[in-house]
C-alpha cells in the first residue's frame, strides 16, 4: 500500500495531468516547462515545451512534425528508470504507434500508470502493449462501448484485396491518419503478400521514411505525383482522410473511397464520410480489450479519459473498481481518426 494516496500527488490541471513530486506534466495541451509525452499524435504531443521526456522514436516523430522542436529533449528507452525530482519515471510499451508509451510514475510506495492511447492487437510496426500493475490506472476510452469489437485485421485486408480484384480499373484510395495507421496498413498489406507499389499522398511520405529509418520494412512506396493518372487504376493509394472528400481525389481514375478506422464499425459514421469500403482497423483498444486491460492492470482506481467514459465507468464499477471521468481539455475524442 502507498504511504500517501496517489490522488495527493497526481493532479488534474488545465494543462493536463501534473506529477507534483516530479514537477512535470504528462501530455500537456499547452507549452509547459517539463513534459513527458506518451506518443507523437497531435492531441498528445504539442510543440513549445522547454523540456521533453519521451521514447527516442516519439522524439524523432516530434522533431519531424515540429521542425526540430523540442530543443531540450531527453530520450528514455522502454523499461529504463529515471529519477525526476522526488519521483521515479519509466516508460512501458503501449502498442499504439511507433514509440508509443505508457508513463509509469512511482512515488512514496505508490505507482500510477498513464497509458496514453493503446491497443492490445499485434501490430507489425510497434512494440506490443505491456500491462503494468498499478494503484491508479489512467485509461483512454475512444471505443468504450460494447458495440466496438474490432474484427481480425487479416479479414479486413482480405476484403480490400478482393475489392481490388473485382474493381481492377478503379484506384482504391484509403483514408488513413499519417502517423501509425498509414504504416500499419502498409505493413499488414505486405504481410498478406501484397508486393506491388503502394502510392502515397505527399503528406504521408515523411513519416513513412521515418518508420523505415527505425527498421520498419514497408516495401515499394511511390508518390502519387510520380505516375500518370492512368497508371493508378487498380492500385492502392493512401491519403489523409481530409484529402478524400477534396479536390485532390479528382486526379485519381474513378476512385473507390475506403477508410481504415475503428469508427468504420458503425455504418452511420462510415456513411457520413462517404466511404464505399469501410475497413475496421483501429489503433485503439476495443471494448473487450479495455476490460481485459483493467483486469490485467488490477488497479483499484481508474480514471477514464478520451472518449466515451460513461460505459467504461459503469463496467469498471461493476467490477468493484473506483472509476471516474477525467475531463481533460482538448482531449474529447481521439484526433488520430481511431
Amino acid at each position, binding site marked *: 500500500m502507498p504511504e500517501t494516496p496517489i490522488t495527493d500527488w497526481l493532479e488534474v490541471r488545465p494543462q493536463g495531468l501534473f506529477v507534483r513530486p516530479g514537477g512535470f506534466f504528462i501530455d500537456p495541451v499547452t507549452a509547459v516547462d517539463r513534459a513527458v509525452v506518451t506518443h507523437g499524435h497531435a492531441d498528445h504531443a504539442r510543440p513549445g515545451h522547454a523540456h521533453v521526456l519521451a521514447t527516442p522514436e516519439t522524439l524523432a516523430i516530434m522533431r519531424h512534425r515540429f521542425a526540430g522542436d523540442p530543443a531540450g529533449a531527453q530520450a528514455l528507452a522502454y523499461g529504463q528508470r529515471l529519477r525526476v525530482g522526488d519521483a521515479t519515471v519509466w516508460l512501458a510499451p503501449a502498442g499504439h504507434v511507433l514509440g508509443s508509451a505508457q508513463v509509469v510514475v512511482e512515488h512514496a510506495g505508490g505507482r500510477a500508470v498513464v497509458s496514453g492511447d493503446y491497443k492490445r492487437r499485434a501490430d507489425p510496426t510497434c512494440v506490443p502493449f505491456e500491462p503494468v500493475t498499478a494503484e491508479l490506472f489512467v485509461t483512454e476510452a475512444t471505443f468504450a*462501448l*460494447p*458495440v*466496438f*469489437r474490432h*474484427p481480425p485485421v487479416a479479414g479486413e485486408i482480405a*476484403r480490400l484485396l478482393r*475489392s481490388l480484384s*473485382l*474493381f481492377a480499373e478503379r484506384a482504391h484510395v484509403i483514408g488513413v491518419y499519417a502517423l501509425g495507421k498509414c504504416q500499419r496498413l502498409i505493413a499488414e498489406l505486405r504481410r498478406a503478400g501484397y508486393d506491388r507499389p503502394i502510392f502515397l499522398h505527399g503528406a504521408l511520405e515523411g513519416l513513412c521514411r521515418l518508420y523505415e529509418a527505425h527498421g520498419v520494412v514497408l516495401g515499394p512506396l511511390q508518390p502519387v505525383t510520380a505516375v500518370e493518372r492512368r497508371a493508378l487504376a487498380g492500385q492502392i493509394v493512401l491519403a489523409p482522410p481530409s484529402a*478524400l*472528400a*477534396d*479536390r*485532390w*481525389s*479528382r486526379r485519381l481514375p*474513378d476512385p473507390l*473511397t475506403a477508410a481504415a478506422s475503428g469508427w468504420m*464499425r*458503425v*455504418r*452511420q459514421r*462510415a*456513411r*457520413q464520410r*462517404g*466511404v*464505399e*469500403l*469501410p475497413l475496421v482497423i483501429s489503433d485503439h483498444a476495443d471494448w473487450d480489450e479495455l476490460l481485459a486491460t483493467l483486469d490485467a492492470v488490477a488497479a483499484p482506481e481508474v480514471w477514464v479519459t478520451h472518449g*466515451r467514459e*460513461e*460505459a467504461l465507468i*459503469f*463496467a469498471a464499477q*461493476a467490477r468493484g473498481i473506483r472509476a471516474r471521468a477525467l475531463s481533460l481539455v482538448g482531449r474529447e475524442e481521439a484526433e488520430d481518426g481511431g
Partner: protein
Amino acid sequence: MRAFADLIERLVYTPQRNAKLRLIADYLAHTPNPDRGYALAALTGDLRFTHAKPAMVRELVAQRVTPELFALSYDYVGDLAETVSLIWPEKELDGGGPPGLAEVVETLTQAPRGAVPGLIEAWLDRLDANQRFALLKLITGGLRVGVSARLAKTAVARLGDRDPAEIEEVWHGLEPPYRGLFAWIDGQAGPPAVAETQRFRPMMLAHPLDDPAADGLDPGAFRAEWKWDGIRVQLAAGADGGDGGHLYSRTGDDISGAFPDVMAAAAFDAVLDGELLVVRDGVVAPFNDLQQRLNRKRVMPAMLTRHPAWLRLYDMLFDGAEDLRGLPFDARRQRLEDWHARVRPSRMDLSPQLDFADWDTLAALRAGARADQVEGLMLKRRDSAYVAGRPKGLWFKWKRGPLLIDAVLLYAQRGHGKRSSYYSDFTFGAWRDAAADAPALVPVGKAYFGFTDEELRQLDRWVRANTVDRFGPVRAVRPDLVLEVAFDSVHRSTRHKSGVAMRFPRIHRIRWDKPAAEADRLATLEAMIVESAKGPAATEP
C-alpha cells in the same frame, strides 16, 4: 452466410448502379445453389418471414447484455439490428460453423412461431458481426441496400449474357431458390416454363421527342394519346390463373396487393397495358394522391374510399390465350375497344385517341394541356407491333414543356461516389413577401441534376468561394446566385416550410447574369399549383 453478408455490406455503401451490378453478378457467379437463389430473392423482395419481429430480437439481446450498456450503445448506433449485431457477446464457436443462407431461410420458413426465438439465438451465436447484421436485416425484412428488383434481375441477366427482358419474361412464374432460372443462365437447360397467365410481359417503351415536325415524322402514320400522369402498369388477369391475376409496375414488380379495388374488377382473361390513376367522379387526381396508395402492403378501407384507383387502358397484349403483340397498333386498339364494349369492366376506361391532321394541331393541344394530370402526348406508329423494351422509331413521348422559375441558391451538399468531391446537391429558395420590408428567402426545392459536367465544376467552384457556413457535408452560401429551375409540376405540401413541393426539379440554366433580387417570389410558384378539380376530365381531355 459469410458471402451474403459481405455482399450486403458492400451494397450498403456502394452508390453507383454499375458497381452494384458487378457486386451482385460476382456473388451469383461464385455462390452455389440454393444459397444464391435465396440471396436473389432477398434482393428482389420475394422473401418474407412472418414470425421474426424486431421486438423478439430485442428480447433476445436483453437476456445477454446489461440494459445500461445496451441503452448507451443503441443510443450511439441508432439502428436496432445494427446495435444487436455489434453488441452480441461472442462465445467460442461451437464447431458447427456459421449456418448457410439456405439453412436459415428454409428452417425459418418451416418453423412454428414458438421455435423462432431459439433458432435466431442459436444462429447469432454462430455468426460474426457482419453476418449477424445480414441475418437480422434479412429476417426482419429491411435489407435496404438500394437495390431494386429490376437491378437484381439485370445482374442475373449479365451473369448469363442475356437481355434483362428475357429474365422479366419468365420471372413472375418462378419461386426461390430459382434453380430452373440458374440452370438456364448457366447454359445447362432451356428457359424455365411459366404458366401464361402468371407472368409479366416486358413493356414497350417510348423515346422522348422534342418536335415531331423537325424530326420529319409523317403525321398520317401516327396515333396520338394523352400521356397520363399516373404509373404505367400491366394487368395480367386470367380465368385459369387461379389467384385473380396480377398488377405489375413498369419494372415488373407485383403491386396487386396495394390495389385490391382494381384487382376485384379484373374478372376476365386478358393482359392489358394502361395507366394506373386515382380518379374521383371521373376526374383524375394529382399524382400525389396515387403516391399514397403505392408502397403499401395493406390498404385500409378508408383509403380505398378516399383514393379510389382506376385503370385507363392503352393497349391489349393478350385476349384470352391469344397473343396480340404481333398485330399492328391499330388492330390491337380495335380489339381493345371491342373487348371493352363487350366485357364492360368496372374501374377501367379507354384512353381516348386524339383527332389531328397535322403536327400544328397536335402542338396546340399539347400546349393547352397545362394541367397536372397530363404529362404530355404519346405518339404511336399505327403499324407498330408491341415490342419489348425501347425499340427505335415506333413510339414517342412528347412531353409538355417544363415549368420554370428563377430561384436563389441557398445550400449545397457534397454528392456521392464519383461526385463525392463535388458540391452537387443544391437547395434553392424563392422570395417570400414579408409583411414588413424585410423579404426573406424560403427554401422551395432541391435539385441534383440537369447540369453538365462543366457546369458542375463551375457550381462547385462557386460554392467553395461563397460559403458562409458549414454543417457537416452541407455548406450555406451567400444568396447571390440565381438558378433557372425546371420542374414538371408543383403541389401543396404541409411537410415543407414553403407550403409547396416541386416534382422533378432540375437545374435548367445557371443565371450568372441575374441579380438575386430579381429571382421569383413564392407567390409565383403558388400560382402554378394545379388543384385536382381543374384537371382534364376522363372523357374529354
